[in-house]
């Protein structure tokens, strides 16, 4: 077996892995190795040719390739090592096992490990759409890869289920390439993605957005011939009388993302039932102290800028752990109060430092107050005109002497 040693091993070479590796190197780790299953670095951003990345981090509107290009430049400059075409099969406390067509099975011994495997799309099987099983049903990301990396057009008349960002971005992309997008259909009564994408991807091209609607049937034998849509009631049940058929040859699904945690699960690392990613503290440290995690493998983000920021924390922490400068201290669970679905990090180690808590609300609300409390003591308070499950919120708190943390969003 081929054996390698390094200080920090990063699993995944997308935006999270690249940022973590650069940060680990800058924090003093000697040998930092990225293991990536694709033939090139950049992860999902390789197919995200649209603009909108980097507004927070670089104050510029970059495309996906431009955004990760900057991180690759940086990684090359600081001397991050990479192993491409290598699929990680197993992670234990200090060993990453991967398989590579050149070397076969490789064992990488590392002082610390960063998990940055990203997420996968939910599919037709996940949401159980009735009907036949013809060709022409794609997840939005698959269609995006086919069009933007492989030069394959996926269809001419398209219906998109789900108003997630990738779905809306593909609505624009398909339209620009000559397809007709008949509608974007969303089961919830609010938009799943960012408002900016609704304006620039749907409204700009007159593509109808049907909220509180879903696809109830797919018709066609070899190829999709039509889909049947219907309005849903308050319990998300389709209303029979509102059914109508839309002729189309393609159905794209943009119905959510799930962190890709097969190796995390196998390693016995504690997974949050809500985010479906490993639970972490403010150092992005998992329940296995030598293993850190960042990006969409922890919780699905809407902005890559946030991924880069939290991944830099993970990389820095992994370097400190490798150098014996970070241990595992007792952590306090961060609790979710009113209208908060989850908070990341899920637990924090008390101490005199400021930490960003990222969280999502459960339902859209207007004119709210966001608070983080330690018992009666209010550590953070901010008013917001609008909150939406599709847009992650942030609260910064100092953890000096805290005994508990509760994040709440209340109408005022």
């Amino acid at each position, binding site marked *: 077996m081929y054996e390698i040693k390094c200080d920090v091993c990063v699993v995944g070479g997308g935006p999270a892995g690249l940022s973590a590796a650069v940060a680990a190197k800058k924090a003093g780790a000697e040998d930092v190795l990225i293991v990536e299953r694709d*033939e090139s670095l950049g992860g999902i951003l390789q197919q995200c*040719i*649209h*603009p909108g990345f980097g507004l927070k981090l670089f104050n510029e*509107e970059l*495309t*996906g*390739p*431009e955004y990760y*290009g900057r991180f*690759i430049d940086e990684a090359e400059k600081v001397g991050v090592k990479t192993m491409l075409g290598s699929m990680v099969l197993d992670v234990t406390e200090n060993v990453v096992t991967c398989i590579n067509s050149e070397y076969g099975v490789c064992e990488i011994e590392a002082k610390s490990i960063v998990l940055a495997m990203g997420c996968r799309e939910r599919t037709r099987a996940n949401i159980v759409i009735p009907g036949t099983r013809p060709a022409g049903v794609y997840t939005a990301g698959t269609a995006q890869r086919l*069009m*933007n*990396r*492989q*030069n394959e057009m996926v269809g001419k008349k398209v219906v998109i289920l789900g108003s997630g960002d990738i779905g809306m971005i593909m609505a624009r992309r398909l339209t*620009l*390439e000559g397809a007709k997008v008949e509608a974007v259909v969303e089961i919830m009564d609010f938009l799943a993605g*960012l*408002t*900016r994408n*609704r*304006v*620039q991807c749907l*409204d*700009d091209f007159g593509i109808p957005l049907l909220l509180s609607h879903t696809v109830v049937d797919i018709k066609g034998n070899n190829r999709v011939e039509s889909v049947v849509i219907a309005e849903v009631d308050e319990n998300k049940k389709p209303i029979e009388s509102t059914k109508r058929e839309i002729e189309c040859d393609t159905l794209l699904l943009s119905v959510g993302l799930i962190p890709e945690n097969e190796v995390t699960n196998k390693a016995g690392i504690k997974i949050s039932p809500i985010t479906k990613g490993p639970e972490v503290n403010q150092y992005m440290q998992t329940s296995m102290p030598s293993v850190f995690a960042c990006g969409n493998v922890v919780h699905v983000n809407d902005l890559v800028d946030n991924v880069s920021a939290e991944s830099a924390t993970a990389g820095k922490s992994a370097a400190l752990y490798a150098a014996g400068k970070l241990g595992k201290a007792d952590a306090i669970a961060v609790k979710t109060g009113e209208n908060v679905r989850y908070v990341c990090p899920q637990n924090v180690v008390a101490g005199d430092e400021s930490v960003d808590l990222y969280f999502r609300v459960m339902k859209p609300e207007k004119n709210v107050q966001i608070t983080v409390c330690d018992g009666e003591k209010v550590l953070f308070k901010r008013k917001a*005109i*609008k909150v*939406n499950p599709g*847009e992650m919120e942030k609260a910064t708190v100092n953890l000096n002497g805290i005994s508990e943390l509760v994040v709440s969003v209340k109408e005022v």
Partner: protein
Amino acid sequence: MMKKEIICTVCPVGCVITVEGENGSIDSIEGYTCPRGKNYAENEFVSPVRILTSTAKLTGAKSPLVAVRSKTPVPKDKLFDCMAEIRKLTVSAPLKRGDVLIENVCGTGVDIVSSADVK
């Protein structure tokens, strides 16, 4: 007189701003809650622009395509004209992000550039 409802995209609040006017001049503007929103709606009413991104055929590399973009935003009503020009393009590796592929696309004064590095 033209009346347009504009959803502001400057921040996540998404104010609905109503602008009235004619021939690029604005008579009334309502619904904005900050100066950036007002500025956005004015520009959006008078001359809406968008960054255009697409792909171009690529030779001499593993990938059949390279991501391209308009270096700066182009007028919204020129998007499809610009797409037609990009479609005619075949470029060859190597490329660096920022390399100019089409100068002054469709007379917009904006260049189409490579948005990826290709070795």
